[in-house]
């Protein structure tokens, strides 16, 4: 075998770049505000056991349950409204689960159990002219945005009266007229550039609005997440991106999706603010969302908010989440978003009496029962209603700028030269 001639690389001292040894002066520092009152840290690994490979969790499970952080913005009435949305969110999903067990649901059911504070308190920070792009677990957000439980029930039962008239399922619906909700699709991250584009469209019409969407610890792995958030950042668009870190992407733990400690650190790479909140604390979620929305409306660009919590069910109803180590469920059950918020309102703030609370819950259940009855009794679509509507035609929509006619500044017509074109392709 021929002996390879080793090339010797000599680095002359003079060829070293002057900043080869970083000094503290050119070291960059970034801060990621973390509003949590407790910072759980678990590691989930794949471990070979006698019965096969299983997930094993390590970490401290003994911490005391944190209190709700005092909101800097919400008044009593707003607390109670968010609390009611959270109850409606959870109890609606219980109703959906029952409808599924009764065989009335077509397909599966997706839950936001454990994430109600994140969905409801975030969407609550939006104004009417703002936009929302919910993900599959943000059914609570769509309620806050003005859809009713019966809309969502009819989606799951594929009824003619569902927002998509039977054409799509679950949270896959939207409304560009009144509620400013963009329908999600099943693939993850795709809403991010779309919501950025909504903000771009509004800005061309002279309005800085807030546009909010969500991504998970799993979905943030997609390329379009990067593309969308980076686009929003360079264009300085008012995107509020909630990264819902619920620890599980279907059956894959967050530790197998990314290497950074906190997903909020990603914000540094986009050059935008990033904050961390406890996703089970409605006040923290609201305050962060409110500040991000205000930034958006001031034209100051996007914000990334990481909300930490745990998905308290499987990916969908078929998934019993047997792969999740039991201590994690026990730990997060004690940190239930609704139980803690209820305790805060009842016992800490005393903003609601036990009687009023019972009445409020009864009112929610009454509404859900009425909606359930309506949705169950409503008809399935006619088979022929599958036809048509592929194209927008025959004046089915009047398309015009939503906010205002874009302002157009007249400038002199310009030079035209084609010399630099890619004319080598000829």
């Amino acid at each position, binding site marked *: 075998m021929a002996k390879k001639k080793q090339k010797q690389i000599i680095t002359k001292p003079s060829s070293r770049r002057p900043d080869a040894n970083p000094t503290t002066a050119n070291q960059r520092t970034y801060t990621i505000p973390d509003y949590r009152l407790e910072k759980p840290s678990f590691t989930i690994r794949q471990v070979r056991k006698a019965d096969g490979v299983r997930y094993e969790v390590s970490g401290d499970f003994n911490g005391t349950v944190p209190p709700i952080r005092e909101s800097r913005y919400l008044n009593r009435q707003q607390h109670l409204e968010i609390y009611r949305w959270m109850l409606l969110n959870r109890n609606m999903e219980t109703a959906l689960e029952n409808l599924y067990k009764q065989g009335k649901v077509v397909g599966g059911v997706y839950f936001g159990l454990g994430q109600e504070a994140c969905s409801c308190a975030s969407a609550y920070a939006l104004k009417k002219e703002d936009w929302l792009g919910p993900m599959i677990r943000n059914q609570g957000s769509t309620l806050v945005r003005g859809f009713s439980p019966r809309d969502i029930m009819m989606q799951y039962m594929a009824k003619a009266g569902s*927002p*998509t008239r039977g*054409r*799509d399922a679950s949270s*896959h*619906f939207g*409304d*560009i007229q009144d509620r400013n909700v963009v*329908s999600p*699709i099943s*693939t993850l991250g*795709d809403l991010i*550039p*779309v*919501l*950025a*584009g*909504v*903000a*771009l*469209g*509004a*800005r*061309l019409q002279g309005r800085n609005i807030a*546009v909010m969407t969500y991504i998970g610890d799993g979905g943030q792995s997609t*390329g*379009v997440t*990067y*593309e*969308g958030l*980076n*686009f929003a950042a360079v264009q300085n668009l008012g995107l509020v991106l909630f990264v819902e870190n619920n620890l599980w992407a279907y059956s894959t733990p967050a530790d197998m999706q990314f290497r950074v400690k906190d997903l909020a650190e990603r914000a540094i790479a986009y050059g935008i603010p990033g904050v961390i909140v406890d996703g089970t604390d409605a006040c923290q979620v609201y305050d962060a969302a409110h500040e991000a929305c205000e930034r958006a409306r001031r034209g100051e660009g996007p914000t990334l908010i990481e909300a930490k919590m745990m998905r308290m069910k499987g990916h969908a109803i078929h998934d019993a989440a047997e792969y999740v180590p039991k201590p994690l469920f026990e730990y997060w059950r004690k940190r239930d978003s609704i139980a803690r918020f209820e305790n805060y309102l009842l016992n800490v703030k005393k903003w609601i009496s036990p009687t009023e609370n019972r009445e409020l819950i009864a009112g929610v259940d009454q509404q859900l029962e009425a909606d359930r009855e309506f949705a169950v009794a409503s008809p399935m679509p006619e088979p022929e209603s599958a036809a048509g509507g*592929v*194209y*927008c*035609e025959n004046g*089915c*929509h009047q*398309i*015009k*700028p*939503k*906010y205002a*006619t*874009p302002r*157009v500044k007249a*400038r*002199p*017509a*310009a*030079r*035209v*030269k*084609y010399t*630099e*074109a*890619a*004319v080598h*392709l*000829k």
Partner: protein
Amino acid sequence: MPQLTYLEAIRQGIWEEMEREPAVFCLGEDIGIYGGAFKVTDGFIDRFGPERVVDTPIAESAIVGAAFGASLTGMRPVAEFQFMDFIGCAFNQIVNMVAKAHYRWGAPAPLVIRGPSGGNVHGGPFHSQNPEMWFVHAPGLKVVCPASAYDAKGLMKAAIRDDNPVIFFEHKYLYRRIKEDVPAEDYIVPLGKARVAREGRDLSVITYAAMVHTALEAAEVLSQEGIELEVLDLRTIAPLDREAIAHTVRKTNKVIVLHEHSRTGGIAGEIASLINEDAFDDLDSPIVRITAQDSPVPFSPPQEEYFLPKASDVVREARRLKAY
């Protein structure tokens, strides 16, 4: 009437629509100060400002996603792809987000995705493709492929005014090769309507884009031999002009379908099926396909020439069909 190249006609079409309608704006890579890789948007940023001529990161999914989002607020975005070969990067946004929006949840998406496609320019496998069939198979999209400068302008204006997502395939071989009279006044060429590019009695060549010129070249040769080709330029391949296809079959009774994209799953198969359904009894011979081979577009000029359909292929097949 001013003489314009195919490229200038496209440019003028977009320009006039931006002058006419404040909701129209452009976004894409290098389209601003640089004026686009092929200079289609040269001078736009000076005239319309950086607000309406948005230079984007190299992020095709973001470009399409943002265009769709803006269209939801009633804007009419025109998104440039530097090469249509790169449209694969935005495939999910186009076929799952945009194309399905109106059917699923009643959201119209009045946007145009445009850019250069096609070969015969020695661009190699990633600068020469004709990926239009990827989108013909995605219900909800319209797919436009102009062959002339007149059509390029009129179809572009119609695409921008259309309330649906339109994928507009410009043929880069034609950009500066063809020049013709284009009216200065406002006109549109409706989407979904084919045109007879040359009348003939003996057999029909159904084609579009650069291949229209290949067919016309063959028609000249064949005319000397007394064979008169009719050339049907589809202009839009989704939706197809079914009536015009049946009409030319009824007239000539013999058909060649000619396209630049590869053979299997090409538009020729769809057109043959439409003819079977609409005009089978009018056929006097089998339908012939002339297409590129089922391979990527090769780089080296002799290989690319082998790959692409040529006028001589049309002449040969036309002679064979005439004698059938």
